[in-house]
């Protein structure tokens, strides 16, 4: 420090300079301990990083700015959540079917946010570079935010509707919740570089727009101001995370040409794994929103085919190709939501939300949105099931389906290009046969069978007798493995799942709101006085 420096006014710092001064120099080369003993996990994957300082932070957030902007978001969000709770906003949604989607959300998605928080926390500890470490810790904190705000918002619904009260318990135990659980555990148990490519790039950058933008917009369209508020508020963090996703890819690819094939392999794997996970959103969008904003196939066209196309065109200069199994996703886009709803309907006694067959209005909408597939393959199936319901002999599955060893969906998907043939694959490993739902999942299994054989596959576990509460005696004469497995999962048969019509949620809804529980079917009970939806009522009052 030169004394004469004080004569001039202090230098004005730009955003970039300020950020660089306040972050980059914080780290140092250790000399008392070996670097590889401090950062132990960055070598085993084979990624080569020559200069961690080449990392570019697009959003140059210092901690004070983080607190400031995030604090403002939280104040806004909780003002809405408080008002929502005070005014019983849970009854303002279109109908009680919409609430079933929130059950999938809190039981299947909230804990993913938490796992994501943990995954980024590990990176925040293990990356040697200051820039990426700070980006990871801010994201870890954001993910904690997402879990928290989802719980705080949906807790109001959980007080008035069934099936949402045991979300942490169910996430660890319910058979179909092993789909999201195994997805994120797969990522977190990988090495740090695979994790960040999987989550920041393949999942957040390439895929989550597709789910959260149309889905949250749909929540708004159905009058759920609380969910759209946490959803879009979380997305504002996501926009920051997505730039982390693209920066990490560029960083890895620019650091060493040897990283290119590794990154490509992870993109191929996690694009497929993420796509399979998000198929759940496909069915939520097409079947669980009483009023729809966009169909799954349209969302796939906009957010994957167009935007993903632009992204992979940009990455072509590094030698990166679009995900290997992208063509299958395009071929399946007219089928996936319908196939999935059919499986849930058939297994509705073993799920934690209630099911219905699509109404005439909804089927007309699907015919219009899916002109090449719906009338040909799925309408006849629904009409047949409707007739069976009307005849008093509703169709239901009594055994649990075969699950895919990788994605853990029931093997319910069809061959791409042949929607009448189920797609089934298998691989041998150490003398045992493992089943997969698709080529995409088989690729993943065959690359790392030693990892996937450890998957906690719920249906196998049930049949092996591992899913009973303490004190249950499987040798007792009246022992019923399915009944006991549902108890173990925390699902109350006839309350949490089953048929929507006649359910506690539908009956309470009509009693409490005097509006139909299903806007397309008229009143189920005589508590209904007004068959118009709230939006119509509003329009009438305004007019």
């Amino acid at each position, binding site marked *: 420090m030169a*004394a004469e*420096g*004080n004569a*001039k006014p*202090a230098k004005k710092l730009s955003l970039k300079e300020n950020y660089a*001064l*306040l972050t980059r*120099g*914080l780290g*140092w*080369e250790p000399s*008392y*301990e070996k670097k590889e003993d*401090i950062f132990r996990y960055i070598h085993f994957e084979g990624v080569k990083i020559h200069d961690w300082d080449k990392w570019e932070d697009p959003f140059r957030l*210092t901690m*004070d700015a*983080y*607190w400031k902007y995030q*604090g403002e978001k*939280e*104040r806004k969000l*909780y003002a809405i959540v408080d008002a929502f709770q005070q005014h*019983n906003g849970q*009854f303002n949604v279109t109908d009680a079917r919409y609430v079933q989607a929130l059950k999938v959300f809190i039981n299947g998605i909230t*804990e993913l946010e938490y796992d994501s928080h*943990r995954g980024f926390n*590990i990176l925040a*500890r293990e990356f040697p570079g200051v820039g990426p470490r700070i980006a990871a*810790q801010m994201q*870890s*904190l954001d993910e904690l*935010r997402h879990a*928290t*705000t989802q*719980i705080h918002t949906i*807790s109001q619904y959980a007080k*008035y509707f*069934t099936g949402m*009260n*045991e979300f*942490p*318990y169910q996430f660890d*135990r319910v058979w179909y919740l092993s789909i999201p659980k*195994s997805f994120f*555990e*797969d990522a*977190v*148990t*990988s*090495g740090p570089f695979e994790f960040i490519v999987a989550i920041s790039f393949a999942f957040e950058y390439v895929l989550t727009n597709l789910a959260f933008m149309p889905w949250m917009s749909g929540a708004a369209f159905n*009058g759920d101001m609380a969910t759209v508020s946490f959803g879009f508020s979380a997305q504002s963090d996501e926009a920051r995370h997505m730039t982390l996703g693209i920066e990490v890819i560029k960083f890895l690819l620019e650091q060493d040409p040897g990283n290119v094939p590794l990154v490509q392999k992870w993109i191929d794997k996690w694009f497929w794994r993420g796509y399979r996970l998000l198929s759940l959103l496909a069915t939520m969008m097409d079947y669980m929103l009483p009023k729809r904003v966009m169909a799954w196939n349209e969302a796939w066209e906009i957010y994957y085919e167009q935007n993903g196309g632009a992204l992979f065109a940009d990455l072509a200069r590094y030698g990166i190709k679009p995900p290997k199994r992208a063509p299958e996703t395009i071929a399946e886009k007219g089928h996936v939501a319908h196939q999935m709803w059919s499986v849930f309907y058939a297994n509705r006694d073993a799920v934690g939300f209630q099911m219905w067959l699509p109404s005439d209005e909804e089927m007309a909408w699907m015919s219009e949105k899916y002109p090449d597939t719906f009338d040909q393959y799925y309408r006849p199936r629904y009409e047949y099931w409707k007739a069976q319901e009307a005849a008093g002999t509703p169709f239901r599955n009594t055994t649990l389906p075969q699950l895919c060893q990788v994605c853990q969906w029931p093997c319910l998907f069809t061959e791409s290009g042949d929607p009448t043939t189920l797609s089934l694959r298998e691989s041998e490993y150490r003398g045992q046969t493992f089943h997969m739902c698709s080529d995409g999942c088989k690729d993943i299994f065959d690359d790392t069978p030693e990892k*996937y054989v*450890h*998957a*906690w596959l719920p249906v196998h576990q049930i049949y092996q007798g591992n899913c009973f509460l303490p004190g249950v005696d499987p040798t007792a004469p009246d022992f019923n493995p399915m009944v006991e497995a549902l108890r173990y999962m925390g699902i109350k048969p006839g309350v949490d799942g089953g048929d929507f019509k006649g359910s506690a949620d539908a009956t*309470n809804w009509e009693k*409490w709101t*005097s509006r139909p529980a299903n806007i397309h079917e008229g009143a189920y009970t005589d508590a209904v006085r007004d068959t118009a939806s*709230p939006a119509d*009522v509003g329009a009438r009052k305004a007019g």
Partner: protein
Amino acid sequence: MSVEIRTKGVKPLSNSFGHLQRRFGDKPATRYQEATYDIQSTANFHYKPLWDPAREMFDARRTAVMMKDWYQLKDPRQFYYGNYTTTRARQQDAIDRTLDFVEKRDLLRSLSQDIRERIVHTIVPLRHYEWGANTNSAHVSAYGYGTAITSPAMMNTADRLGMAQHISRIGLLVDGNSGDSLLAAQALWTGHADWQPLRREVERMFVTRDWFEVFVAQLLVADALVYPLFFQQIDAAIAGASGSALSSLSDALMRWYEETAKWIDAVIKTAAAESPENKALLSGWTVTWRNRLLPALVPIAQRALGNKAEDALAAAAAALDARAAKLGLTV
């Protein structure tokens, strides 16, 4: 849009989530409770972590401390993300006003060269101590068990980055935003004899695996010695020679330290009361790290305080011992 609801007849089916009802009864839960209790997965893990194949992804065995219920380790501040960020944002507003006041009046730049050099030599290198604390705190939240401890540890991780940046700003106020003081401070931290013993202990924490030991070493012991020594004793010595400009900025650090100590104390006290084994472990770690860190602070304390250094360190050590004893440890 207004919707007519017969709210009088509407009674909730339950007042809180099942896991909260089992802990606290069927009554409305606080936002802290909703965001904290039983949130982390505990069962049916799918894969062996490639980075730790002998354990599960979430595994209580990453520390020797044992708790029957890890959710006993609650945070008396009841922080969840929302009240944490809005609290920090509010505090930062006040800090920004002080920074602005000091900058506009050139309060640190106009100090004598001798005092400015003292600040750069004895205060600014602590930005690296804070970055080390950030690493250690991230270790606790990354490998800890149960949201009750890991969530505030994550917030503490963020706090330590904030503190590192606050101390860096003190440097920039001294050097007129040239960044020279930060470069000088890094050279001191990595090369000057006054700082090497402390850096040695910080790096030793980096290779300590048991996350609860890291918690004790960094958050209980090191902070309890470093904060009072630098931001009270050394700060007071500088203020005695030059007025309170620096103190107006270190005040925020002390306030933060006192707030955070409430959380640290609650965690230690509860874990020690759980079992004699825990008490012995925590006491042993406290003694070990105290005995490492106290001598490590001698050279920089002597540089800053001269012949008063010994008393200053003895006072900080006595305060730590008394605090540890109050928390049920034997030191």
